């Protein structure tokens, strides 16, 4: 069994290469091996599409948690981030992350090797599919960065940080953990992070943490006495739809990280993922109810996300019984985290807790719950504490958390520090008051809510003189309001 994410993907690629002569002779009909390979790619591409849909989930979750004056901005941000992210991932990100020639970063595979002769060969179709799947992961990690910075960051910061993050920061982490030759695969018998609790989620949340330290809280978040005040999001239905779309996308995120349909492992991973999510909902609901005696909608949504983030690393390594427990603890962590962080740091969507703290917990949870059967099945690391593996794997997981956090934090802090020193990180106070929709995008996300009807064309606009229309006053017909 190949050991790494890329190892498994490489096997996929080799299969394709070997198949080339077979397809040339395909007049004889499809071969069993060929159909199996296409089945693998079919599942990988379906998963790719599901993970792409998570962008919609992030957009709606963040828009729901923003005030109505910052609603359109979320759409502009997601579109531009995903577009720049895709371009950079194609150009350098993927080569840096998944080429196996370098110790820290890859040295080949830029532009997929299609347009240059750098590594001499072009990627096959299945290889391009793997590239697309990993692109979705990188851009999910990027999307996580911005929830914390809502309602006050300059749009220019998205453009610059997207380039640095997809071009350097994320590839460094992905190379260390997933390329098969990175530093984290040489710690112990390898770091277990099946789909990215630390690689994707902790990375995004750590960059968000660096951003918010330079950015500061939204105007009015902290009173003169320094106490935090609630700035309620404008739409709980949008938030809820975002959470449920993310939940659906996560089946591709974790389930797709099998890359193949071998032994139907992906089915087991999807079921385990679901049990993590429900654990998160139940844990968060219980804790916020105990604390406030209210069934807070936003916290329940955060709970689902935290459960999903927590089960992301263990989803291929733990048995079903462990999943709701891992999710439940994630749900408790996210509520406690949001309540604690809110006292000092303004995180409008709770991403630092849901992706950061729950990501740390999920990564460590492998060291507790990984079963010997599944560790052997995936071929990375050892059984966790509860399966007689002792504390070794837990220590390995802790190393991954520390390396990821400090590496990403330092690079992100340098980037955001430079952005702040040059173009500036934060909009002006007037722009923040009026909202980013009108200040940066020229129109409110909900124009009728902010512009009086008499000023909107077509509603109460002046009647053209001499048009022959008689005054409605005194006319027999009723005038609708």
């Amino acid at each position, binding site marked *: 069994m190949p050991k790494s994410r890329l190892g498994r993907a490489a096997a996929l690629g080799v299969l394709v290469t070997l198949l080339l002569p077979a397809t040339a002779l395909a007049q004889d009909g499809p071969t069993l091996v060929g159909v199996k390979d296409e089945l693998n790619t079919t599942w990988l591409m379906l998963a790719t599409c599901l993970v792409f849909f998570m962008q919609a989930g992030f957009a709606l979750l963040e828009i729901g948690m923003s005030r109505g004056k910052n609603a359109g901005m979320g759409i502009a941000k997601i579109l531009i981030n995903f577009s720049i992210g895709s371009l950079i991932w194609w150009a350098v990100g993927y080569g840096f992350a998944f080429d196996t020639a370098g110790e820290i970063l890859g040295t080949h595979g830029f532009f997929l090797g299609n347009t240059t002769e750098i590594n001499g060969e072009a990627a096959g179709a299945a290889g391009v599919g793997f590239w697309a799947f990993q692109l979705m992961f990188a851009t999910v990690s990027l999307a996580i960065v911005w929830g914390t910075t809502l309602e006050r960051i300059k749009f220019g910061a998205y453009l610059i940080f997207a380039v640095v993050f997809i071009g350097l920061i994320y590839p460094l982490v992905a190379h260390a953990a997933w390329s098969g030759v990175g530093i984290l695969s040489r710690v112990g018998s390898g770091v277990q992070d099946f789909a990215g609790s630390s690689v994707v989620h902790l990375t995004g949340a750590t960059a968000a943490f660096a951003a918010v330290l330079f950015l500061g809280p939204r105007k009015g978040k902290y009173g003169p006495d320094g106490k935090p005040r609630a700035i309620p999001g404008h739409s709980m239905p949008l938030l809820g739809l975002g959470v449920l779309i993310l939940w659906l996308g996560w089946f591709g995120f974790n389930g797709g990280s099998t890359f193949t349909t071998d032994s139907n492992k992906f089915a087991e991973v999807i079921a385990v993922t679901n049990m993590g999510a429900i654990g998160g909902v139940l844990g968060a609901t219980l804790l916020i109810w105990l604390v406030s005696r209210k069934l807070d909608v936003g916290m329940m949504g955060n709970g689902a996300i935290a459960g999903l983030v927590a089960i992301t690393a263990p989803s291929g390594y733990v048995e079903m019984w462990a999943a709701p427990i891992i999710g439940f603890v994630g749900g408790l962590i996210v509520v406690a985290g949001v309540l604690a962080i809110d006292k000092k740091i303004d995180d409008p969507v709770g991403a630092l807790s849901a992706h950061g703290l729950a990501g740390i917990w999920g990564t460590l949870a492998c060291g507790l719950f990984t079963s010997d059967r599944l560790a052997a099945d995936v071929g990375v690391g050892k059984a966790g504490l509860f399966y007689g593996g002792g504390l070794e794997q837990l220590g390995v997981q802790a190393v991954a958390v520390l390396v990821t956090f400090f590496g990403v934090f330092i690079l992100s802090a340098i980037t955001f520090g430079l952005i702040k020193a040059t173009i500036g990180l934060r909009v002006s106070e007037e722009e923040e008051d009026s909202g980013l929709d009108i200040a940066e995008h*020229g129109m409110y996300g909900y124009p009728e809510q902010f512009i009086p009807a008499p000023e909107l064309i077509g509603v109460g606009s002046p009647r053209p003189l001499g048009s022959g229309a008689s005054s409605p006053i005194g006319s027999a017909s009723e005038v609708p309001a």
Partner: protein
Amino acid sequence: MKLVVAYIRHEAFEPIRLELLELGFPSLTIIEVKGSGRQKGITEQYRGTSVTNYLRPKIKIECVVSDHDTQTIVDTILKHARTGSIGDGKVFVLPVEQAYRIRTGESGEETLQIHPDAAAAAT
């Protein structure tokens, strides 16, 4: 009795309300309104077409107080609402004929505020 009507910027409201509360004037009403004045509208681009929005959002405060409290209210509003730029708003003072508290049917100045002076003047 006087009705103080003020049109102010949104951000001025909170400090005004806090100070009035401290001084013993908790009873007031606000309305979110749009209005025009010497403050220019904003022109924006929507899909490449320009849109001008002349009516700017303001907060309208309505507060009924006894005659001798009127200046306190007006001073508090002026103190916090003034930035010195066009668009700070205006304050109007209007006479009020009578006031009734619906819950008890009482009438007169003692129904207005909890300010001790107002209560004392009524008795």
